[in-house]
């Protein structure tokens, strides 16, 4: 078969099948971030497992970094909560403004 014919043949063969895989993770781009998703992201919760070192002999460095995070946990929690407080309040204000704009647009119509 020539390459120019292969795609047509594959499409015809696929049309005879009905065994598509539905389960499992399917990656999709985030085209428009909804206010609900923004709310989710606004809550700062970094995963401690992501703390690691890519250097040679990174394992002990990773261990040391994680110990440091553990030791500083009270301070880091404070930072996270302050940032989250700001993020959430800003989003609530944004959501209120969106509602207000929508109501005003409705009134103009």
């Amino acid at each position, binding site marked *: *078969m*020539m*390459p120019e014919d*292969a*795609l047509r*043949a*594959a*499409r015809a*063969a*696929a049309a005879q*099948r009905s*065994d*598509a*895989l539905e*389960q*499992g*993770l*399917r*990656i999709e*781009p*985030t*085209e428009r*971030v909804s206010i609900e998703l923004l709310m989710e*992201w606004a809550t700062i919760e970094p*995963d401690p*497992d*992501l703390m*690691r070192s*890519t*250097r*040679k002999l990174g394992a002990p460095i990773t261990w040391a970094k994680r110990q440091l995070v553990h030791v500083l946990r009270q301070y880091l929690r404070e930072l996270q909560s302050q940032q989250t407080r700001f993020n959430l309040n800003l989003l609530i204000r944004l959501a209120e403004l969106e509602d207000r704009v929508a109501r005003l647009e409705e009134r103009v119509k």
Partner: protein
Amino acid sequence: MNVHQVLSGAGPHDAVTTQALAFRALFRAWGWGGRDVAAEIDPRVGNCVAPLRALAPLQRDVLLIHYSAYAPKLRGVLQMPQRKLLISHNITPARWFWDHDPQAGVVCALGRKQLPEFAAAVDVAAGVSRYNARELGSDVVIPILFDPAQLGAAREREPPQPPVVLFVGRLAPHKRQDAVVRAFELFRRRHASDARLVLVGAPINMRYEQAMRALADELSPGHVTIESSLTREQLAERYRSAHAFLCLSEHEGFCIPLLEAFHFGVPVIARAVGGVPEVAGDAALLLAPDDDESVVAELLALAVSDRQLRDVLRERAAARVAAYAPEPTARKLRDALQSLGA
């Protein structure tokens, strides 16, 4: 003559760093001096790339900026009086990263936003493909310097069964390894129950790697291998033992692994996005946007088993590798730099 290369970031398995080091080898061969610096350097890179603060060009030197990520520290380079060539290596749209690596999302979003400012501030802006160059509003293309000799010899005979499907590329959302796993599993169920899939590429983060491993274990347990940090010899061996190369990436500025697969005579199936059609030409089976995983599975079956199809693709692949031979690329690079006074 001195040409200094400025990188947004330097990493050990990073295509842009590899490219900059290959350029440096050329500059040395041409008798040119200069040094390579980066705004961010992975410790594994070693001493071949210096920190940005080490950049101290003379008035007549030329700066070659490799633009591949947001790097606010590079703004200072734009203010320097030396003549500048910018090569854009393309930045993935942030929408692919928001859910999986927010930091990468931010870097990509800002990087794409900053690119026009950089392109306007240099003397010549070039892309590694026409697709990349168009994004800059430029028609200057300096392709990736691809030297097949460094990969080792292509295979002399067909690899033994069972079929092996290969993809090489960063384990990242826009590369769509999830779709590769899905299409492979359909192919395996329908045509070759003992087939194997090999995914080679460094993950963007541990969580994403775990998600991909979990998907592979759920859909195709025991048939998928995920590897990274391979040596050049190991990578060459993966290509030599592959029956088909499957790229379902949703965004590619150039896609070097296509040329690598061509060099090793591996039939290529790829989604026709970004710079892929330009690089692949007629040597790959290119998918339309609405071709689903079922179509891909059937194409895999043909690419693995149809002798004539494999032979024709291999012949055409050799022509694509010849089209991207290092000599003409080196000439384009030299011409662009000499036009700036190097």
